């Protein structure tokens, strides 16, 4: 047993641990909730995780550079609203252009954060606390209490959440899920393959060293924020498609959901480490817990948040201790 553990990379072990936690959660709830292990539940969890996944991926990128983006909830709201408004006037825009528009608006908002953090040298938590308020205020002011409704949106967008991309083993995989996942896959591949993306880890791991090693740390941080914004744009688009009705509260509080998913997914809040697979599992795990608790007869509506908080804490604690003992194991192996 020890020998097997010794051979696998600690990061991989950590992912396995996370995955086991997810499996355990699913198994537990399947004993508690009737017809839990059903295609329908699969759809529920995947489609609801799909809204959060892009912002979790973006948040992970930012966190890896030792920063944080608290403005994404507001960005999601603004993108959903502006895109919806634009579509109300130009309903014939092609889907690809719509996506580009949403990503573009998000990226621009991310760029504002990025410039302030990377070039203005203002700590990210300050910048994004500020823009969290600012973007939401902008939305309140700009929307003038008008609501975007499904009626004003093109039919393809309204129908998007119910379109199946493909089915495996009787499980339906929706287009929105594919969209969300593709964000994680693209970023995941980039992070392991692209030199430019590896610099994200370097900058988060030791910003001073990055500077000395000839890495343009400011640009890396800037790009991370732009990506985070763009991905919030993607979330905004999925949000718009899914709910159709966009008011000033759209996306409120999403930043906390994203941070929770990222943290549970094993991305170090101190920067420099983490993987997209972890983020995906983290996102699904949090969503599974949340979704399952609402269906669990044993717990009343009012216990949900308390349990959610405790379970997140438990997941993180187990992960911390597991990875710490793994590291110790690895260190001993290295010493021998």
């Amino acid at each position, binding site marked *: 047993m020890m020998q097997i553990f010794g051979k696998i990379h600690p990061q991989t072990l950590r992912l396995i641990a996370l995955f086991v936690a997810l499996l355990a959660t699913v198994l537990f709830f399947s004993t508690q*909730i009737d*017809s839990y292990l059903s295609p*329908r*539940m699969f*759809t*529920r969890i995947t*489609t*609801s995780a799909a*809204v959060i996944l892009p912002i979790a991926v973006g948040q992970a990128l930012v966190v890896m550079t030792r920063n944080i983006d608290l403005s994404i909830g507001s960005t999601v709201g603004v993108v959903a609203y502006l895109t919806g408004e634009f579509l109300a006037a130009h309903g014939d825009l092609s889907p690809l252009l719509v996506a580009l528009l949403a990503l573009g608006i998000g990226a621009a908002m991310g760029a504002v954060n990025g410039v302030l953090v990377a070039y203005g040298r203002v700590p990210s938590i300050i910048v994004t606390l500020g823009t969290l308020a600012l973007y*939401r*205020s902008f*939305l*309140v002011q700009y*929307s*003038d*209490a*008008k*609501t975007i*409704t*499904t*009626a004003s949106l093109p039919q393809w967008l*309204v129908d998007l*959440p*119910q379109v199946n991309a493909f089915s495996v083993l009787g499980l339906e995989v929706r287009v929105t899920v594919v969209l969300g996942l593709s964000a994680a896959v693209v970023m995941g591949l980039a992070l392991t393959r692209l030199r430019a993306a590896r610099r994200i880890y370097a900058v988060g791991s030791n910003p001073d060293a990055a500077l000395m090693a000839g890495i343009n740390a400011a640009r890396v941080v800037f790009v991370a924020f732009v990506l985070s914004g763009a991905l919030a744009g993607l979330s905004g688009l999925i*949000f718009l498609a*899914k*709910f*159709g*009705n*966009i*008011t*000033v*509260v*759209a996306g*409120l*509080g*999403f930043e906390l959901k994203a941070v929770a998913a990222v943290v549970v997914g094993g991305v170090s809040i101190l920067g420099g480490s983490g993987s997209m697979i972890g983020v995906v599992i983290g996102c699904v795990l949090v969503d599974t817990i*949340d*979704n399952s608790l*609402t*269906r669990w*007869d044993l717990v009343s*509506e*009012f216990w949900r948040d308390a349990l959610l908080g405790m379970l997140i804490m438990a997941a993180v604690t187990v992960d911390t201790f597991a990875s710490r003992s793994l590291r110790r194991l690895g260190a001993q192996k290295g010493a021998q």
Partner: protein
Amino acid sequence: EAKPGQAVNMVLLPKFLGVAVFDQADRGAQEAAKELGNTGTYQYEGPTPENSAAGQIEMLTTATTQKQGVVMISNNAGDQIAPTAEAAQKAGTKVVTWDSPIPSGKGESLFVAQVDFGSIGTVMADMVYDEAGGKGEFAVLSASPDAANQNAWIDAMKKVLASDAKYKDLKLDDVVYGNDQSEESYNRALGLVDKYPNLKVIMAPTTVGIVAAAKAMQDEKLCDKVKVSGLGLPAEMVSYTMNGCAPEFALWSFVDLGYLTYYTSYMLATGSLKGEIGEEFKAGRMGTMKIDADPGRPGAKRVLMGPFTVYNKDNVEAAAK
């Protein structure tokens, strides 16, 4: 009878800014202001969505400091606002609630009720009855657990269900809360469907919840099985009513509510209305109104606007315009 042309500084305070129904109330209030020729100031101000309760308390305090004549508030802070409202009254600023009252009635001169809360219960029960075809299981998707008006309506509905044999075959499975957020409401609605396989109707007495639930049923192609009903805005609901996901829902006119609230408040502040039970007065285009005891809140007084409009395929498109 109102005495137009006097100066009363008035503030209309919604739960928070950026929501269509409150803006409609603002329009109604402005209409009344013009009609009454109030030479005082009028402001429509509200907190930000994430800071609603604390924001309302802050704004009411500020209005008191500014010695505003009347603050008309759609209360989102529950009883937490009562001490502030009492302080306002003491300092000479009248507090009139509309849409959502102060539950204990403390510090409130009057509540301008959109409809009788008891009758909302009846209408909600009837809509469930219609959509379920007289029998079956249903569940409620509400706003936040602390929303005073929703809680009152749900209670009223439960009373109606229990009191009339007509509803004996309807079974209320659960009450869940979507906190007036699309994402949460959507997930809660789907959660209900999964948890209760025989569910026939989701009753959502909140404009955010009803749309989210309707969209969820549409997305999951469940509209044949599970109908959505509740309180909604025609403009937001029109497509779901037309495609059968939410065949019936109800609402009152927020323009009228704003108008009546302003009218009543003005009269109260100018002394043409004492604000005592039994008083009758003419409220412009709304006709004759009467102050009576609020049946839901002992000791509190209300002006009842009424009635409902129940929307369906026949009238929703016209109302949505």
